[in-house]
């Protein structure tokens, strides 16, 4: 059976209109990982039992994260006859009664429930619009446009909200080159960290010979402090699938693989579900939507390894081997997965494609600043009043993010440090608040925006302690293939640990720089090349913290006096001996 898109769309729109105009209330429960950690599953069960014991006939969907994670578990209700949703925050089993009373009577019991506001055209008496919340109004949701609004497990809701339109139109037009052209014009740059222009990357693949070519969607997302890839898969997996299909059609590829770390059940289950729905709706497989285009997508799971997110290590992992980077060349577009031409993109990058193609040239590139076009999804967490997931246009300042969106630092404390771009990124001081969100400006300052994680630390945190954790992470995750990274990270960690214990030796700072320089020059992949970044940027912005440990034998905040537990076994070197203090450190320069 070849499905016809207009038929699919009519059915989906009917279904949607029945849902929103139904005589039953529609309850949406935020059930992403942030919601789960706040107890969303318990809330969900309690809502089901209480609605059935009150004989309340309702539609319930578990949806993705609307971004205001500090208010999870979040539940929202669309009452029959109303066109606006009312959002309730921090929902506990005690507040469910208040929500159900709202459904039954339309009355809002403000002392029983925490009401965030309403969202929609129709004003609701005594409530403010979510759009007036400072965390909301600076946002521009493109890749996240459906997340939190539709049920991720329902392809019809995606289609009714404009989904798969870009794919259908592109297939109808029949000019794959046109997609590459629009992507190039859009100025979209990879959101996986390196910021490589996406249209250009796709154009490399066009020339590679088929018939088997791969598009890989990278959702390894090992960066601590980042959860936006998982956020997309949990909230709107079809957006990613459509992006992969567009990339596939544009580059003449035949297969797609979504690469996810095992154990993240939400994203994995949602994606599996979406893939099987796409097959049964004729959006994957042979003759997609009746056109001459065949494409298959499968999921590949990886074990725990950070370096598996590096594009060549990722291919090794899909092939079932140890996730160690390959030498380049050959470049993936020539010989990648199973030695076939391959394009690797981050999940966010691919999720932008459907909207960019739908709007055509000139739209996406009009958002943003300089060479940083469009929007970026920020994962804000740490010592901040409103941790969450916010999609904002490039060009805001870091101050806007921290103070307007994030609501500032809790307990009246002041900002000390921002850690951006994952462990290989860097740290910034409070003078960086004037900095614009711009890929170039941030990397010039020694930090990268990377995958969009921003970890905030207040004045009571120590920069040396933070550096220790970042370096410990990089050491723990070194894959062990090349020695500058394998040995260099161990050296760096030992020195940083020594400084935290106020047992630094003379010349330790210079020694670290020396090791770092060698790692940068000699490592095979960006893990080793950037492994010194956290230390370099911490010394740049927080030299007094280091000096205080080294010269005055004192941690200015006392953080470093606490015992810290780190894994002892690491894949690169086996067990680290943290007690052995008398080793002689020879600068690597003198060995080679």
């Amino acid at each position, binding site marked *: 059976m070849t499905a016809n898109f207009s038929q699919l769309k009519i059915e989906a729109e009917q279904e949607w209109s029945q849902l929103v105009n139904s005589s039953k209330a529609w309850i949406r429960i935020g059930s992403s990982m942030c919601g789960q*950690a706040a107890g969303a599953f318990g809330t969900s069960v309690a809502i089901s039992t209480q609605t059935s014991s009150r004989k309340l006939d309702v539609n319930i969907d578990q949806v993705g994260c609307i971004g205001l994670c500090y208010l*999870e578990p979040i539940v929202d209700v669309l009452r029959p006859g109303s066109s606006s949703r009312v959002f309730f925050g921090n929902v506990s089993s005690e507040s469910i009664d208040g929500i159900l009373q709202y459904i039954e009577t339309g009355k809002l019991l403000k002392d029983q429930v925490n009401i965030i506001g309403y969202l929609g055209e129709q004003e609701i008496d005594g409530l403010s619009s979510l759009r007036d919340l400072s965390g909301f109004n600076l946002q521009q949701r493109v890749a996240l446009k459906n997340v939190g609004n539709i049920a991720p497990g329902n392809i019809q809701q995606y289609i009714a909200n404009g989904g798969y339109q870009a794919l259908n139109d592109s297939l109808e037009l029949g000019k794959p080159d046109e997609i590459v052209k629009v992507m190039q014009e859009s100025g979209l740059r990879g959101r996986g960290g390196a910021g490589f222009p996406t249209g250009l990357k796709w154009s490399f693949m066009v020339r590679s010979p088929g018939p088997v070519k791969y598009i890989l969607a990278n959702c390894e997302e090992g960066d601590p402090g980042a959860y936006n890839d998982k956020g997309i898969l949990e909230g709107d997996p079809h957006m990613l699938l459509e992006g992969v299909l567009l990339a596939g059609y544009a580059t003449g590829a035949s297969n797609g693989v979504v690469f996810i770390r095992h154990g993240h059940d939400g994203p994995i289950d949602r994606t599996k579900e979406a893939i099987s729905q796409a097959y049964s709706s004729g959006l994957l497989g042979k003759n997609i939507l009746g056109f001459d285009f065949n494409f298959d997508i499968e*999921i590949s799971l*990886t074990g725990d390894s950070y370096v598996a997110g590096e594009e060549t290590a990722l291919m090794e992992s899909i092939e079932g081997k140890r*996730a160690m980077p390959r030498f380049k060349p050959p470049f993936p577009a020539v010989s990648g997965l199973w030695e076939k031409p391959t394009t690797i993109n981050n999940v966010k990058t691919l999720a932008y494609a459907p909207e960019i193609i739908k709007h055509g040239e000139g739209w996406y590139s009009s958002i943003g600043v300089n060479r940083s076009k469009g929007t970026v999804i920020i994962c804000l*967490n740490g*010592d901040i009043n409103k941790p969450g997931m916010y999609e904002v246009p490039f060009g805001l300042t870091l101050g806007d993010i921290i103070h307007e969106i994030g609501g500032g630092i809790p307990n009246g404390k002041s900002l000390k440090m921002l850690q951006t771009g994952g462990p290989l990124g860097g740290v910034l001081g409070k003078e960086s608040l004037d900095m614009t969100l711009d890929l170039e400006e941030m990397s010039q300052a020694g930090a990268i925006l990377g995958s969009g994680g921003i970890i905030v*630390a207040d004045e009571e945190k120590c920069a040396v302690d933070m550096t220790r*954790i970042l370096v410990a992470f990089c050491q723990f995750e070194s894959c062990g293939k090349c020695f500058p990274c394998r040995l260099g990270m161990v050296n760096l960690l030992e020195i940083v640990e020594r400084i935290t214990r106020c047992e630094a030796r003379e010349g330790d700072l210079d020694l670290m720089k020396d090791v770092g320089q060698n790692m940068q020059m000699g490592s095979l992949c960006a893990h080793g090349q950037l492994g010194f970044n956290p230390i370099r940027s911490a010394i740049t912005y927080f030299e007094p913290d280091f000096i205080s440990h080294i010269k005055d034998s004192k941690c200015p905040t006392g953080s470093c006096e606490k015992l810290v*537990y780190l894994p002892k076994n690491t894949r690169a070197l086996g067990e680290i001996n943290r007690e052995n203090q008398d080793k002689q450190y020879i600068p690597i320069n003198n060995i080679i």
Partner: protein
Amino acid sequence: MSEQKIKDEINKILSSPTDGTVTVLSCLLLVQDEIGYIPDEAVEEIASFLKTSINEVWGVATFYTNFRFTPPCKNILEVCWGPTCHLKGAPDLISGFLDKLNLEEEGDSKDKDVSVRYNTCLGACQQAPVISINHSLRGNVKVSEISNIIDFVAD
């Protein structure tokens, strides 16, 4: 379980239908999902199932840090030590859990009730500090809750 029984069990797992590409890694993940660890027999069976060497399978199994080679305890507690959780008090949390379970570092409690594992990021940093108990996430964990959490799961 006898060696033969383990082998039979593993072969049953390996020959169950899957939709993705079958590789050394996918087989290892499948076995650990089903029985909680990678017994020596599994390494041998996977090698013969995929016509590769035992070395190859060992290499992969020891590379990814989620694999374990002894049966896990009844409950699995993962505590995050990632930077966000660290800032929000993970060190106190970890030492509290270790104390409560009489452990010095990550590992299995003596009564075999709880296996403790450190995790680099459980993916819910918004709710830091985060732990996961038998794969269900729990955020904003306070040191004062440690006793209750352990007593509850160990029950």
